């Protein structure tokens, strides 16, 4: 482990890696501070570059970029009342109201510090939790992996979406997309209709860029650009007062961090849901819940910590089981596979240096956040003046080139286009896009492990429940399936009794 730490420090201190980290930070801060452009989109567009880098700088760029983007999303919330990324939506109202009261500096200072703290808490959870879980994962066989994939898909569909039925449809659409191409048991090609390009299946990265990048472009060109007046950032100290606030709400900080890590680790739920949940829980326990939504600093601490700790939380199941905790880690798994690194216990044994580098980058990125964050706040009013109408065509160009660059195949641009249109229409009508991606990435894991298990058990199903861990996972899955049913029945009953 010590050797691996040293190796990872050597790799990370390479001037090129440092350059990559700095550029990724600036990119993340820029995209994050522009309302309407999300951290997931930023990741999808980063992939073609990450693809050409070695694993360590590639992963480092994603980790830093994402941390910075989620923080930077807080900046426009305080200044123009628009969350820069969905992860800030929960406390936009409070941030802006405080901003109007001349406390922009305080809010943004708290945003930086809470994001950094949250990120570091998440990193610690990842460093301690992942190896522990990995020991557990070593004993997993196809039965456990089948249940794990099913459990992941089920939480993504049922727990983390507004409409469980729509979430489930999204999951199934993703699963269908994953069946396209050559199948493993008989090597039979499914749903390819003679197309050579489809034999290898739907390319994951172009699909991703379509769903998250192009769909975002469509959403942005629908609305006319609003030129909101910018709130002025007053002069004065930032770090000191912010630290005081964090100290005052230290319980909130720890609580927000834990909520973030847990939500992040849940498949399909990421930083935005972590922030909403932390906000809700903070309100329940607060001495002044009546101030929430009207300019309270307290929930900004809770949710600000939670959305950043969720980022590292999402990496835990991604690295240990290959089950992504959010959309960004889904992309990360895609990149790891392209680089021949299959997430799971193997990474822990053979690629310890990569793993330790990920840990180190998480800490590093969140320490860097403090100076970079303050810098970003200074120049933010300029970043927000960049016209979105100039950026959108350039983002479109990145979508096109990015989806082509992975395989140098123009067909992939078509895949990107189709997925972009489908993702846009579905999302506009309340069908979440995240579960589609999860279905696409977990589909093969689910199906292959199901098939292997059935072949092992000669078609019997009893073995899915007789192994202890597999029984627990199976029971968990069934509980997740029953939750929406129970809440549906309860709703019906309460309507009747009214």
């Amino acid at each position: 482990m010590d050797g691996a730490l040293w190796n990872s420090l050597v790799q990370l201190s390479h001037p090129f890696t440092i350059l990559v980290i700095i550029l990724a930070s600036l990119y993340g801060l820029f995209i994050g501070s522009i309302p309407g452009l999300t951290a997931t989109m930023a990741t999808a567009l980063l992939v073609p570059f990450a693809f050409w880098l070695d694993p360590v700088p590639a992963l480092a760029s994603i980790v830093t970029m994402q941390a910075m983007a989620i923080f930077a999303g807080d900046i426009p919330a305080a200044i123009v009342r628009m969350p820069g990324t969905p992860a800030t939506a929960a406390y936009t109202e409070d941030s802006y109201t405080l901003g109007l009261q001349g406390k922009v500096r305080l809010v943004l200072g708290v945003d930086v510090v809470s994001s950094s703290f949250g990120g570091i808490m998440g990193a610690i959870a990842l460093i301690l939790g992942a190896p522990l879980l990995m020991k557990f994962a070593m004993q997993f066989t196809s039965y456990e992996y089948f249940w794990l994939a099913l459990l992941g898909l089920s939480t993504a569909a049922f727990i983390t979406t507004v409409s469980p039925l729509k979430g489930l449809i999204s999951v199934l659409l993703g699963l269908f997309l994953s069946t396209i191409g050559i199948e493993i048991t008989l090597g039979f090609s499914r749903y390819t209709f003679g197309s050579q390009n489809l034999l290898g299946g739907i390319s994951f990265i172009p699909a991703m860029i379509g769903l998250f990048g192009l769909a975002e472009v469509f959403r942005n060109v629908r609305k006319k650009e609003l030129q909101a007046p910018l709130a002025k950032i007053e002069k004065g100290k930032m770090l000191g007062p912010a630290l005081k606030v964090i100290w005052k709400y230290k319980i909130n900080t720890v609580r927000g961090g834990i909520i973030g890590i847990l939500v992040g680790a849940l498949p399909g739920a990421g930083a935005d849901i972590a922030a909403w949940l932390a906000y809700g829980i903070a309100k329940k326990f607060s001495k002044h819940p009546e101030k929430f939504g009207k300019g309270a600093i307290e929930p900004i601490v809770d949710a600000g910590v939670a959305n950043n700790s969720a980022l590292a939380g999402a990496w835990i199941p991604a690295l240990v089981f290959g089950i992504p905790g959010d959309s960004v880690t889904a992309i990360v798994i895609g990149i790891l596979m392209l680089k021949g690194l299959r997430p799971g216990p193997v990474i822990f044994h053979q690629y310890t240096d990569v793993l330790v580098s990920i840990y180190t980058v998480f800490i590093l990125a969140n320490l860097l956040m403090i100076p970079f964050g303050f810098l970003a706040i200074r120049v933010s009013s300029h970043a927000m003046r960049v016209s979105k109408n100039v950026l959108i065509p350039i983002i479109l160009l990145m979508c096109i080139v990015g989806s082509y660059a992975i395989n140098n195949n123009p067909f992939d641009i078509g895949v990107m286009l189709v997925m972009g249109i489908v993702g846009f229409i579905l999302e506009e009508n309340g069908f979440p896009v995240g579960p589609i991606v999860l279905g696409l990435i977990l589909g093969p894991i689910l199906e292959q492990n199901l098939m292997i298990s059935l072949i092992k058990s000669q078609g019997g199903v009893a073995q899915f429940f007789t192994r202890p861990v597999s029984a627990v996972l199976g029971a968990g899955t069934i509980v997740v399936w029953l939750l929406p049913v129970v809440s549906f029945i309860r709703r019906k009953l309460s309507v009747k009794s009214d």
Partner: protein
Amino acid sequence: MELIISLIIFLSGGFIFGYAFTFPRMEGTNYPGPGFFPKVVGFGLMVLSFVFIVKNIKKRAWPRVPRFKEIKYELINVLAIIASVLFYIYVSEYLGFLVTVSIILVSLMLLLKVPWKKSFILGIGATVITYLLFNRLLSVPLPGGFFMW
């Protein structure tokens, strides 16, 4: 709109389900073949979308055709984006990356009401930077077109 989407999903589900019956089976064994998983997925899609179809018919939520005037702005922009991607796919091979992308970027910026001078400078500038970045630095073989060697 939800009704139309549900109908499309229902039909797709039916197709996925039906088509899976043409997949081979592993004869003489009692475990399912390649068709099993898609059948479950297709069937699931049919059932779930059927719920939405019934819901929308009960609510009489018929799809409303919006007046062209209401959606003119967004329709034109969305179609322009789609057209740009198709234009790139089919034309870049002949015109080359630099020309095709410059045309796309400048016209999209003009459509989005960016001042024309700015559109030309930024559109062409972004094209050249992207070209250098991907072609020279990352050595992605971007289409050269007829006047490149």
